[in-house]
């Protein structure tokens, strides 16, 4: 297969297994510059593994992964994986990703200035000398987003970047990602939040070990696809052109019963 030179990463029929358990099966996916994509799926559906396959930290057991020679990745890990008791301050977390790659203990003036600016742009400049444990959940997410941006990436990979944060932080993070993609940076994020995140991004991938459907949220997030992806029944309504997913709870009255209660059953 010949790699498309305009793509940052492409996965072609890629599979991956931990020990003997297949977690990603026959996945084909392409990421182009400026793309903004969400990967949705239930826990254990292979979302993080797929991110790592895109990043190249995992090599596929079968299939091919092609990466552009110009690829520079900024990665935001799940906050649950971070060691919050590690003795490190906000600014040093960000400086870790500095592309300067200088030897020695001291950081350069220019990279310090850039880290400082990034933290200010993300609204946490006043916290730069704090220990990471002293921050709120939303502030902690911003620190790791700042670290990813510090690497001057052309591909951002974000693992649950808005899990457990308030609405304002979620909107801010999405706005930052949009401004990055406007500048040609691609962003791929995993999320459980269908309404707050996936429905608002131009491209959604529904994953349950393999790709169930992929495309713009409107035609992709439909009941059949959602059922196959999550194994749960969901309904959709539309609001200002965005799909809104509603859980269909087991105790929710059926259509027949609702009609009967309304006196419409005939």
């Amino acid at each position, binding site marked *: 297969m010949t790699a498309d030179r305009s793509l940052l990463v492409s996965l072609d029929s890629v599979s991956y297994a931990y020990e003997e358990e297949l977690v990603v099966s026959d996945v084909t996916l392409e990421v182009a510059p400026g793309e903004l994509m969400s990967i949705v799926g239930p826990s254990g559906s292979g979302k993080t593994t797929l991110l790592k396959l895109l990043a190249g930290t995992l090599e596929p057991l079968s299939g091919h992964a092609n990466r552009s020679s110009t690829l520079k990745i900024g990665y935001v890990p799940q906050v649950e994986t971070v*060691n919050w008791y590690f003795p490190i301050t906000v600014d*040093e977390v960000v400086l870790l990703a500095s592309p300067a790659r200088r030897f*020695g203990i001291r950081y350069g003036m220019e990279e310090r200035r850039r880290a400082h600016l990034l933290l200010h742009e993300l609204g946490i400049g006043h916290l730069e000398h704090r220990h990471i444990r002293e921050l709120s959940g939303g502030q902690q997410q911003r620190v790791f987003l700042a670290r990813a941006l510090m690497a001057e990436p052309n591909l951002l990979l974000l693992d649950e970047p808005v899990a457990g944060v308030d609405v304002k932080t979620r909107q801010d993070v999405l706005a930052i990602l949009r401004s990055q993609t406007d500048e040609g940076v691609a962003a791929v994020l995993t999320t459980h939040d269908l309404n707050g995140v996936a429905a608002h991004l131009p491209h959604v991938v529904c994953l349950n070990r393999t790709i169930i459907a992929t495309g713009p949220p409107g035609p992709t997030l439909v009941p059949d696809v959602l059922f196959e992806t999550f194994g749960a029944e969901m309904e959709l309504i539309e609001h200002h052109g965005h799909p809104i997913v509603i859980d269909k709870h087991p105790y929710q009255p059926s259509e027949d019963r609702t009609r009967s209660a309304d006196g419409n059953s005939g």
Partner: protein
Amino acid sequence: MEILADPFRFEFFRNGLVVAAIAGGLCALVGTYVVQRNMSYIGHGLSHAIFGGAVASFLVGINFFLGAGVWGVASALMINRVARRRTIGADAAIGVITTASFALGIALISRSGGFTRNFEAALFGSVLGVQAVDVFVIAIVAIAVSATIVALYRPLLFLTFDPEVADVFGVPTGRLDALFSLLLAATIIATMQILGVTLIAAALVIPPVIARLLTDRFRTMLGLAVLIGTASGFTGMYLSFYLDISSGPAIVLTQGSLFAVAYIVTGGQRKRFRRLAGVVTH
């Protein structure tokens, strides 16, 4: 002053003091990474594994540093490799490799019967046998390890803080892991005689833990740990001389006492901060 000056009449003490101070600082420097990577058990295990190599090299008649060095590097790489396997569990895998190596050392001693005095020194540390060459070796190792850690401060810090993600940002985690295992093995081999196999783990762990109680910055933690390690090596040597006990236990007891003080003081501070902040605990 006389208490401080008097032991200097003895050459073994002068050599021992230099070696103990360097050993304390060196172990603390490497130990800071060991502690923050939750690898304390590897440090403990590796020192025992190297003991097997030390005995084997003594019996075969090759240079101690060469024999123990090769054995230590092989063990470190094996531990590093086995620790990456998920099915066994890192702790169990380290236990298997290192105790088997330690047992081999004991078995060789039992068969030969000619290693008794050195055996005790290797287990518990002794300054009596420290010669100028030992001072030279530990100084070289300390300079090499310190220079490597300073030069690779950033990637090592990234690897220590966030090993899952560091390679995405271009940190060569596999090579760095292997290099760190070599630094750890070199540290243990160079300090084994003064601290003893059974107590090296303590010298690796206690000063960084004390430093961690005192600071939230990694760089400061490194500096404080080295300071505490060096000072306790120095103090431990005097205790060893005046109390007529082995150097290893003397150094580790000094560190243990410092830990107790730091723990109590920082615990008290935390309570005071909580009271000032109006946090009510029941």
